[in-house]
Every structure is written in structure tokens, then in C-alpha cells.
């Protein structure tokens, strides 16, 4: 009996499926789990594992054409009464009284989950009005109290503001306040920190944890990030293609995983916790070799007045990988695009040394020069969907730069086949269109396009951030293999410190358009000198539940401007 008292939500053999053109797609296929009172259950899985659909099924808010085909979702109330949520009418009175009041949910996108036309006070108070009919004055008091709980500064003025006046992290706090309004017993958090920067993520995770303890809530936390799981979970449910692969306490799952998929998943996370083996074995790069690229005092101010790149100087040596790390808005992507003159920096020099030893300033290069230089300096894009034209076959995409370089006929076909093999794609797939490929494969196509004209330097802009963690290390390994084969240098832009640590020889940290720290990767990661770097490093979730670090993290307060988060 004590067992069932403990369990607040019991999901048994849940089946949710979507009708598609070719048949029925079982997004959730026989999922069972129990959520204990006051505990955190993390549902973890890669994209397409059905973790979000599971969460949405509980509240019966699965997007059309998805339907719950079978199974039960039993909610046990505090008075001992039970209700099977799967049996309720999705538009009925009963499920509506559960939503928000007994089970609250927060979503991934704080941008789109709040209404832009209502003041945040009204939005938070709405649940109170609907479920309890709280009178207006009392409602305002309660909302102020909630805003204080989620640590929004100056709640008295914040309550009358609109969503757009808040940063992403603040919006997520508003969402949490909204979820807490009716004192729910269960909080479902569907990737609540995925859209946030790592330092903001740490703040939000911290907040959820503290609120859970003070309110005695159960939390069902959906995430793809094993680091986050290790930081906050009591129990873990590993999902893969709609099925539960493993279920256990966080310590069991991380330190004694039974299932092969779990092992693989944790393995790929742990792999990214240290430098790649292929890099450890490699000989040191000559420090005194003439730099391939030397950027001096580069600055770019947008017409809006935003100083996106502010006096940045860096060097790239032949054969090395320079990592650029920073949070969103730090100007790292803009900086990368300046190097290829997609944007025109107003000041500074971008000195590129060609194979024959001549040095050209790319910032002032004219069009024909630029055309030639862009064959030697190439780019890999972040978005594996948007960077490949959906209307061209793989062969056409890879062949495009070669064609423009004047290659034709049989030679071209053979080179395309060779490139596809080089990046691990079957040459037989050449007639396929990008939509037939997974994210990792698409990124390989993008890499093939980048290396097709035998470049010497590649700017990789968040090349792996759109990929699942298990694919990430594969793509990175491929990039390093190509580096060794072709003698490439990389400028690797990423917000993800683990990816930088895995692959880069040196790293530069950017913060608000400025380079705050640069040095050997080992030194920056282990002995950071700048406070911002320290804060960034300490906010990264560590994939070991025995060593939870986020609570003791280092906070960086910028000298002048206010802090978001």
C-alpha cells in the first residue's frame, strides 16, 4: 500500500500513434513508468524517440493527427482518489480541471509559449481565475508572490510588462510562475532549457530544483541532454523510437547501464568529455609556423549600432583547429562570417597566407581575388536542412563548386563519388534528394561540398549543434580525419564547450563581441583566467550524477551591463 501512496502518476502500456501517408507511425509504443511524489523523473532520448509525445499524451495535448490508442495514465490525487487521464475526453471538463491545476507544463520555446499581447501578470493570473475564480486584487497579490518565487527582479513593475520586454531566461521564469500558479502536484517540463544559453540553463535548472523541494512537486523532465539528466534526475527513463530502453535510478543508469542503447548514449556523451583520441596521439603543431590566417583588430558594427565584433584579433596556424566559443549574441557567428566576407567588417585586417607564401588581406580583397580565396577558405553551416537546396540531388549539390571551378563530365562524376565515399556516404545515393537523409548524413553532404575544391581552411559554424549527441562525435571524428588527410585548418565555432574540448587545439572565448580569453584548449578548460570563462565552464552540466556541479557554479556579473537569466 505504501508503494501506491508514493506513486502519483502511473503510466501503463501507453500507445500513441500518428496516421501518415504510408501507414501508422507509433510515436509512443507501450511506454510504462511511475512518477513518485516529490521526485524528478527524467525522460531522455534523442530526437524522434517519442519523449515529447509521451509528455503531451499525459495531458492529452498531442498534436493532430496523433491519438492515444491504448494504455492507461492513472493520476492519484492527494485524497487517494484515482483518475485515468487516457480515458477522459480531450476537450472535456474533467481533463481541463487537471491541466494547469494538478499537472502543469512548461515548454521548450519561451518565445512562442507566452502570448505577446497580454501583460505577464494577466497570463500568470489566468489559471487562478479559471480554476479557482480568484478575485482580481487577491490574484495580483498571488502573482506578485509567484514572481518573487521565480526570482524575477522588481516583481511590482515586472507584473505589468509584456513578454517581449524579457530575455529568454526571464520568459522561462514567467512560464514556471504560470505553471506554479495553482500549486500543481506534477510539473511536466518539456526541454525547458534547450533554447537557452548554458549559463541561463544552469539558473533555470537550479530554480526548478529549489521550487520542487519547497513545493513538494513531482517533476517529469524531458530532455535530450545527458548532462542535464545527471544534474537533476532522481530516476531516469531512456527512450528510443517510442520504446523504453531502460528505467532506473540516475546512479544505476549512469554507472551500471544494462541496455546497449543506454551504454551507447552515455558512451557518446562521455567521449565528448575529453579530448579526442585521434588528437591526443597527434604530434604537436609547430607554434612558430607562419600563421595561415591572422586577424588583427577586426570590428563590425551593424547599421543598428550593435557592435557585433569588437576589436577581435586571432591567428590560425596551419593544420590546427581553433575553437571559438561563446553564448548566443556573443558575435561568434558574425565573426566567422566576416572571415569569409559574407559580412564586411569595417575595420582591421584579415591576413590570409596563400600556399605560395603571399599574404592577402581578405578584408580589402576585390571580387576576383575573393572568388579565388573562397575556394581555399570554405564554410560548413549549422543548419543541415537550410544549407542544402531541397530541390537538388546530392550529386548536384556536391558537384556545384566543382562545376563552377570548371570541372565537367566523367571527371566530375568520379570526383563526386570519391567525395561521397570520403565523407562516409554511399556513392549509390547520388540521385537522392536531401530530404531522404538524416541530419548527420546531411551534415556529411555539407562537409563534402566544403572539401570538394580542396580548401586549406574551413570555417565550421556550429557544425554539430543541430545533431543528436550520438552523431555529434561521428561528425567531429570525420572532420578530424579529413583534417589529417588533407592538411586542413579549422575555425570551429560552437557554444558547446565539450565539442570544443574534444576537437580543438586552441580556443578563443567570445563575450559580447569581444575576445575575452584565448589559449591552448587544455589551459583554457582547466585553468581559465577570465571570470566569464570560469562561469561558462562551471555552468556546463556534468554527465555524472555523483559529481553534481551546477549548484556550486561560479556566476559572472558583467562589469557594466545588467545580467540576463
Amino acid at each position, binding site marked *: 500500500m505504501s508503494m501506491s501512496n508514493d506513486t502519483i502518476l502511473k503510466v501503463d502500456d501507453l500507445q500513441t500513434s500518428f496516421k501518415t501517408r504510408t501507414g501508422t507511425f507509433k510515436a509512443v509504443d507501450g511506454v510504462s513508468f511511475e512518477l513518485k511524489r516529490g521526485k524528478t523523473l527524467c525522460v531522455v532520448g534523442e530526437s524522434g524517440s517519442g519523449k515529447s509525445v509521451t509528455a503531451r499524451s499525459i495531458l492529452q495535448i498531442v498534436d493532430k493527427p496523433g491519438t492515444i490508442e491504448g494504455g492507461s495514465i492513472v493520476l492519484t490525487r492527494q485524497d487517494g482518489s484515482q483518475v485515468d487521464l487516457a480515458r477522459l475526453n480531450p476537450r472535456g471538463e474533467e481533463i481541463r480541471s487537471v491541466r494547469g491545476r494538478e499537472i502543469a507544463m512548461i515548454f521548450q520555446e519561451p518565445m512562442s509559449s507566452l502570448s505577446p499581447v497580454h501583460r505577464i501578470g494577466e497570463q500568470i493570473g489566468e489559471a487562478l481565475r479559471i480554476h479557482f475564480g480568484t478575485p482580481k486584487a487577491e490574484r495580483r497579490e498571488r502573482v506578485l508572490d509567484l514572481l518573487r518565487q521565480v526570482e524575477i527582479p522588481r516583481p511590482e513593475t515586472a507584473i505589468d510588462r509584456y513578454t517581449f520586454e524579457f530575455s529568454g531566461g526571464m520568459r522561462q521564469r514567467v512560464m514556471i510562475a504560470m505553471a506554479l500558479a495553482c500549486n500543481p502536484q506534477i510539473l511536466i517540463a518539456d526541454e525547458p532549457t534547450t533554447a537557452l544559453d548554458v549559463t541561463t540553463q544552469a539558473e533555470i535548472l537550479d530554480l526548478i530544483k529549489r521550487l520542487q523541494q519547497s513545493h513538494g512537486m513531482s517533476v517529469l523532465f524531458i530532455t535530450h541532454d545527458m548532462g542535464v539528466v545527471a544534474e537533476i534526475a532522481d530516476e531516469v527513463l531512456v527512450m528510443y523510437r517510442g520504446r523504453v530502453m531502460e528505467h532506473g535510478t540516475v546512479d544505476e543508469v549512469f554507472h*551500471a547501464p544494462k541496455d546497449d542503447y543506454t551504454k551507447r548514449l552515455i558512451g557518446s556523451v562521455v567521449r565528448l568529455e575529453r579530448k579526442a583520441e585521434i588528437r591526443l596521439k597527434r604530434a604537436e603543431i609547430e607554434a612558430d609556423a607562419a600563421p595561415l590566417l591572422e586577424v588583427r583588430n577586426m570590428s563590425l558594427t551593424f547599421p543598428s549600432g550593435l557592435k557585433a565584433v569588437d576589436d577581435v584579433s586571432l591567428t590560425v596556424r596551419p593544420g590546427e583547429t581553433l575553437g571559438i566559443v561563446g553564448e548566443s549574441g556573443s558575435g561568434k557567428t558574425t565573426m566567422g562570417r566576416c572571415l569569409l566576407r559574407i559580412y564586411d567588417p569595417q575595420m582591421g585586417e584579415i591576413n590570409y597566407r596563400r600556399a605560395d607564401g603571399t599574404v592577402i588581406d581578405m578584408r580589402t580583397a576585390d571580387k576576383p581575388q575573393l572568388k579565388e580565396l573562397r575556394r581555399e577558405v570554405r564554410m560548413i553551416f549549422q543548419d543541415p536542412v537550410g544549407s542544402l537546396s531541397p530541390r537538388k540531388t546530392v550529386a548536384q549539390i556536391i558537384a556545384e563548386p566543382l562545376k563552377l571551378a570548371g570541372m565537367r563530365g566523367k571527371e566530375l562524376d568520379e570526383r563526386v563519388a570519391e567525395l561521397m565515399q570520403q565523407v562516409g556516404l554511399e556513392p549509390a545515393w547520388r540521385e537522392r534528394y536531401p530530404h531522404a537523409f538524416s541530419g548527420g548524413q546531411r551534415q556529411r553532404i555539407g562537409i563534402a561540398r566544403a572539401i570538394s575544391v580542396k580548401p586549406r581552411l574551413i570555417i565550421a559554424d556550429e557544425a554539430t549543434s543541430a545533431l543528436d549527441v550520438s552523431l555529434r562525435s561521428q561528425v567531429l571524428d570525420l572532420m578530424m580525419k579529413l583534417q589529417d588527410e588533407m592538411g586542413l585548418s579549422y575555425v570551429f565555432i560552437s557554444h558547446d564547450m565539450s565539442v570544443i574540448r574534444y576537437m580543438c587545439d586552441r580556443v578563443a572565448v567570445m563575450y559580447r563581441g569581444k575576445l575575452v580569453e584565448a589559449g591552448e584548449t587544455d589551459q583554457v578548460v582547466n585553468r581559465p583566467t577570465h571570470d566569464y570563462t570560469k562561469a561558462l565552464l562551471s555552468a556546463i552540466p556534468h554527465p555524472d550524477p555523483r559529481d553534481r556541479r551546477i549548484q556550486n557554479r561560479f556566476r559572472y556579473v558583467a562589469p557594466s551591463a545588467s545580467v540576463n537569466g
Partner: protein
Amino acid sequence: MTNITQLPPATETDIDLRDQTIAVAGQWRLFWLKFKKHRIALVSLVVICCMYLIAAFADFIAPLDPNATNARFTYAPPQGLSLLHEGSFMPHVDQLKMTLNTESMRREFQADPAKPLAVGFFVPAKPYAMLGFIPMQTKLFGLVNARPGDSLYVMGADRLGRDIFSRVVHGARISLSIGLVGVLMSLVLGVTIGGISGFFGGWVDLGIQRVIELLRSIPTIPLWMGLAAAIPVGWPPLRTYFVITLIVSLLGWTNLAREVRGKFLSLRGEDFVTAARLDGMSEIGIIFHHLVPSFMSHIIATVTLAIPTMILAETALSFLGVGLQPPIISWGVLLQEAQNIRAVAQAPWLLFTPAAAIVIAVLSLNFLGDGLRDAADPYESV
């Protein structure tokens, strides 16, 4: 973390490749797959195809000469077609008996079931030239062994005893083609001007957009009327027809130009366009290799939605008497003839038959356009 075994990483072959046909399906194939799901649009496509076929083969399908008058049968009502006669299969209409009501001074028609007139397919007719050049002596359907005094008015007759059905069928030629020709003109104007606007940006874009706004703010009917009134009365019908098309397409291109410009702007920011630029592709190359294929399907959808507007514009002009003039037959001209209360009260078929044709054509084109628009970007969810 020492007890974790390092497994070989998951290979990407774990991930299903979508089924083979989809994998190699190009843009138009995906377009069709998505369009097929839109049932009403599919039905509309069939309807539209039928209507254009009817328009093309109007000479063959219309049982009577649309301009042939018959004083005996002024305002004759539609003759109902029956399939059976005295228990045996024989498609026929009943002969009309005309009596003159001396009180109201109106002709009254009475169907006479005792005198069936057999109706058959592929009946001989006076020689004519189908599509203007194929000599024919057969019509799709008509009276078998017609004698003087027999009549076949499927949809009734007008004040001169002309067959409304034949006139509507012939009117489809002008009314449906004016949509196509007008849209073609707007297409050329719209794509060129919109393309220039989106491509060059800056003050060129600013200027073109303001001109478009100016044009769109002019009330259309008075403008058309003014322009149409300027057409000399003595011009041959064909020239009038082309000038009218020009007039209706004069404003139609603005929508298209905006659509093209918008697509240009949104596509220019796409990574694959940036990639092409970094590959060293020229701006012209980017336009024709990447931008045009990407918005082609959108243009087709917009164009389809523009055709009904053109048809309605022609109808409106002709109805007001400033568009096409008799003896040209268009749906608007037919409606103009039903413009008085007497016609509506006494011979409602004068109004309803061309109106029905217009409604069906416009609705079908709208549904078709909707379906095409939904399918225009088949990559949203494959």
C-alpha cells in the same frame, strides 16, 4: 565514470532511409503527392480541365449556332431531357407548343408529351470548322432527324430565340481565355518587376513598392471603365478583346510582383544561397539555379488564384457594358442581356445559366489554387 564500457558509436545506417521512391523524388513529384491529398482541389482540377476542353471544342459541343435566331422561340423555356419513352429507352425532349396569350401579350410554351423529339449523339449538322480549321459535319449531340419547327433548347432561349446553352459554351472561350491571357501578361510583368525589386533592393525596391501601393489604391472598376471607354467603337472585336485583357491585367500583376519579391527576400537569406555564393556562383546563376526553382511552385499557385479575378473582372466590365460588346459572346455579355427585371421574372434561365458557369469556374479555380498553394512547399513535412 570508470565502469562504463566504451561501445562503438551507433552507425548512421541505424536510421531508416525513407522509402526509396520518396528518396529520389524531385520537387514536382513531392508537389503532386501533397496536392493529391487535397481532395477538393483534385476534383476542381478535373472540373477546370473539362471546362477548358469544352471551351476548346465549343463548336462541336454546342448543338446550335450561338448566333442563330429563331423568332418562333423567343424566351422558350429549357426543355427537360427524358431518357424513356413509353417504356423503351429513347432520349428525347418534348416538342414545344407555342400559344399567344392575348391578355398579357406573351408567348406561352407548353411541352407536348405526345410528340417526342429524339435526341442522339454525333448527329449530322451543317458543315463547320472545328477549332477554326478541322472541317466537320457532326455535332456531339442534337436532334435526330430535325424538321423545321422542332427545337432543342437545353437551357432555354433568349429574346431572339438563340440557344442559351450554346451561347454559354461559346462564351466560355472568351471568358476562360481572357483569364489565361491576362494572367500571362501579369506573370511577365509581375515576375520581372518583382524580381528587380527583390534583387536590387534599396531605392529601386522602395520606388517599385510605392508604385505598387499607388496602383492598388486606385478603385479598380472606375479605372477599368475609364480605360475601356477610351476604346474606339469602330475597332474589330478581336482587337477590343486584347485591349480589354491588357486593361484587366494592368492591376493584376501587383500581387504577383509582391509575392515574387517576398520570396526573393526570404530565399536570399537561406544558407544554401549563401553557400552557392561562397562557391563562386554569379548573382545571375544564383537566381536561375536556386531562386527561380524554389519559387516556381509558389508562382504557379498564385497565378491560378489570379485567373478567377481576371474572369470576374472581364465579367464585371462586360456586364456594365463597357467591356466586350455583342456580337462577341462572353459570360459577361450574356449576363448583360439578363440585366432587366423582365428577363429575370419571365426567363430566369437567362441569368442563371451564365451565372452558374461563372460560379463553377471561379470556385473551381479558387479551390485548385488553394490546393496548389498548400502543395507549393512540399518540404515542410514530407
